[in-house]
């Protein structure tokens, strides 16, 4: 069970969270102006990387806030968590990432 650091409540067990899909996909301001292809892109196309992934989680059984997480999908290491609207931290270099997960970014 992952230990996820809620930006409001601190580290909490995964059981309290719900997963919210890929992060940083903003709803178009004027959907009507998009052609079908761009709209489909927004609706359906998601990345599926092996490695660092920016994703949304919601502390549903806690403060109920949505927030963003950078997680390595291969190791489950959580590199950063940050509030909605905040800039994602700079991509971490792979060596550093391993170090930071060991040093307990989530703990």
């Amino acid at each position: 069970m992952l230990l996820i650091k809620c930006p409001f409540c601190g580290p909490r067990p995964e059981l309290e969270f719900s997963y919210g899909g890929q992060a940083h996909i903003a709803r178009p301001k004027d959907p009507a102006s998009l052609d079908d292809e761009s709209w489909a892109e927004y609706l359906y196309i998601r990345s599926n990387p092996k490695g660092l992934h920016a994703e949304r989680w919601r502390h549903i059984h806690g403060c109920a806030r949505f927030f963003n997480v950078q997680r390595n999908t291969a190791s489950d290491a959580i590199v950063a968590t940050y509030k909605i609207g905040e800039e994602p931290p700079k991509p971490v270099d792979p060596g550093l990432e391993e170090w930071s997960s060991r040093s307990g970014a989530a703990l």
Partner: protein
Amino acid sequence: MRYRLPAGGRIDRSKPLSFHFDGKKYSGFAGDTLASALIANGAHLVGRSFKYHRPRGIMSAGADEPNALVGVGSEEARYTPNLRATQIELYNGLVAESQNRWPSLSLDFSGANDLFSRFLPAGFYYKTFMWPASAWKKLYEPMIRRAAGLGRAPEAADADRYTQVYGHCDVLVVGAGPAGLAAALAAARSGVKVFVCDEQDQMGGSLLSEREATIDGQGAADWLAQTIRELKSRTNVVLLRRTTAFGWYPHNFLGLCERVTDHLGLAITKQPRERMWQVRAREVVLATGAIERPLVFPDNDRPGIMMAEAARTYLNRYGVLPGSRAVVFTACDSAYRAALELKSAGVEIAAIADVRSAPNGRWMERARAAGIDVRPSTVIAGTYGRLRISHADLARISGGTMGHPETFACDLLLMSAGFTPSVHLFSQSRGKLVYDEDLKAYLPGTSVERERSVGACRGVFDLGASLADGFAGGLSAAKALGGTAAAEHKFSVFAQSLGRDGFIGAPPSGGKSRRTRAWVDFQNDVTAKDIELATREGFRSIEHVKRYTTTGMATDQGKTSNMNALGIVSQTLALPASQVGLTTFRPPYTPTTFGAFAGQSRGELFDPVRKTSIHEWARENGAVFEDVSLWKRAHYFPRPGEDMHAAVRRECKATRESVGIFDATTLGKIEVVGKDAAEFMNRMYTNAWTKLEPGRLRYGVMLREDGFVMDDGVVGRMSPDRFHVTTTTGGAARVLALMEDYLQTEWSDLDVWLTSTTEQWAVIAVQGPNARKVLEPLVHGIDISQQAMPHMSVQEGHICGVPTRLFRVSFTGELGFEVNVPMGYGRGVWEAIYAAGREFGITPYGTETMHVLRAEKGYIIVGQETDGTVTPDDVGLAWAIGKAKKDFVGKRSLARPAMSRSDRKQLVGLLTVDPNIVLEEGAQVVADPSEPVPMTMIGHVTSSYWSVALDRSIALALVQGGRARIGSRLSVPIPSGPVTVEVVQPIFYDPEGKRLDG
């Protein structure tokens, strides 16, 4: 107990115990395991092998035991199969039985499998049981299952209590052998919160069988006792005996299974039988030790053939002699120690066959000095004895050829190929393993989690080094937590080094391996030949060899076999072992019971059972309930002698003709409040909300962003900035989550907030022409006349003296109200309405009647008429779309060409030409029933009922281009033949809606 020594060991001779094995009575002592007690009685034969039904004995003294699997329990409800006799603590009255034998252990008819073994090679399942396919179910599978199997599952429900508990600690030490105890001491003295778990009934690991070593000037046993005392005395330490760390899950989360009362036999307290710990540890120290490897030689599986360290354990820990005359076969020094200790206890050592060409060092010298016949470059060429080993052939290997064998009589054969570090948990944590050529073992390499391995599990075998390694690991864990670590401690240890020699694979056999069988995986009956065959047949990857031969796939997950299998693949493919790779370790480390995994989640506590405040009234009045998500809802209210159909007919009739009462409490409810509430509603729902006056209701439709119907419900505008939103019962949480999602992540500029009020309001639907008459005398401060309170309006006031939000709304097509009252008053108000309705014959109805009444009116149910691929227009809800709105969730998707195609499935009514046939919901609709199967399916029935009002069957269906087909005939094939149906408008009753006003 013929083989029990008069003194020594950790058993309590003042506490004799009796037990039964296969119906025969034996005795043992407190402190024994089932295995040690059987051996004390001279019983080595304990099971039959999985595939060939070969007689098998006790091979080890711990969790790695592949052979001695037994079923324990005298009552069916407490019976547990497949337990390792080496781990079962003896208690008075224990009843155990051997498995996989018929009719008895010593006379097993399936032993014939062994005679035909050359017809059962690796992959025989795949090769033999190929055709015909139909034979699998009837013939092959039952036959294989009966012949090749483990224990039987108990047939009675488990009578015991199991619990689960979450634990949190700073340092979790897994394993309480010397390294683990040293780590625990270091962490405990540093003042951090420490959990120590060990799978055995006593902590100490190898120290429990230690004879001559001393630590800090004390004998090992005294040091152990003192260390446990110190740990126990510290309030920051939790010691968990009989607790197996079976799994490592992400972020330092470990599963531990504590066997709390198993060793007591009977549950004499309210303590659970097993307790599942789910521990989050900030730091972990793995001190999981090492497992001795068997040697792979012909007929190495007879009862009486045992691991050398296991023999030491039986001798030193249990005071039991595992035999009287032993041959030893080894590739390392530790077996010499075992030979010497057994000899001093009176066991005759016939010879030591050492596969090494030039064994040397202190242990060999001591063995020679003790007069033991030590033979270098010597292997076991074969063994004899049906139910117990009687002889062994020793042969010298020189220049790749085997000399003439010499036969030794023996009743015990000890083997040791060295030690395999237990890297299971490390590997589960996704740490990278590295191969150590010198040790012929995989060792922990780079850690991925906050963890360190200490002692034998990382190849540090000597006692002094192991203690030092453990202590350093404990200090490093404490330091990693940011605190001040305890002072260093230098252990002063006297113990003879055991060296690091070892062997993997099959020792040289003079080219005879093709004709003899040497077991690699004892539990799954895999021989060296099977693995060689797999490589000859082209399997290269160790993962494929594993699956083809099944080596390492038994319940022991190859604890004793994986490295030898790897060695044989390496030998046959002439590849370095490091390039062969290792199969993946997965939880659980040892088999773990379903009871422990289920914990308290069984029976009444399996899931929360959600009940409304009116539930008890319904129960007392004979309601039959149905599950709707976690809710219990009254399905119908049968009177004596009525079945569901009769009850539903009566309930429908009463509601249409006079008045019915229905508990609608489970509907989801959300209070949407703020000055931008209407704007938010405009964006979330297809409807236009701006012009809805306070005091009015509107039916709302919610789409997903992909344009398909997600939920619906009636929404009341309580004031300009406050909406009372209702959702479907199952959709409540989903709708609130979607709303919060948009609000938090897209439209945080809106001044609007959401609060779930599902459980704040009990909802009592009063429906039927007499509904107003029933409610009128009960309400206070509300004018519910037709003029003051038209259809689709809401008023706040009081009913029966409690506050209410009274909705004038109908899901039946009749004049109707939904009375919302604070939940705790639900039953009281229900009873008051029921009493007031008596004179009108008020009839409680359940969800089935509700469904019939709404279907007669063609009102959809989300999830029944919709399935996630249905647009509002598909189900006739185009009218609910605010055309003038620039945007709402799902609007852009509705503009896709595919969403307005004329051949989309559309909601229609179906009337069977024979009015007595009620179609099956889910049945397919076809245009031409004479088409050969598979026919072209153009739709399906979504709802189907007997309509009392129409005195015939009715159905709703989604049909391709359905609206254009109205007036035509289609077919619904059912097992008895096609049913002809007429396509009609999806509304059957009161199409003008005149009855809504009573």
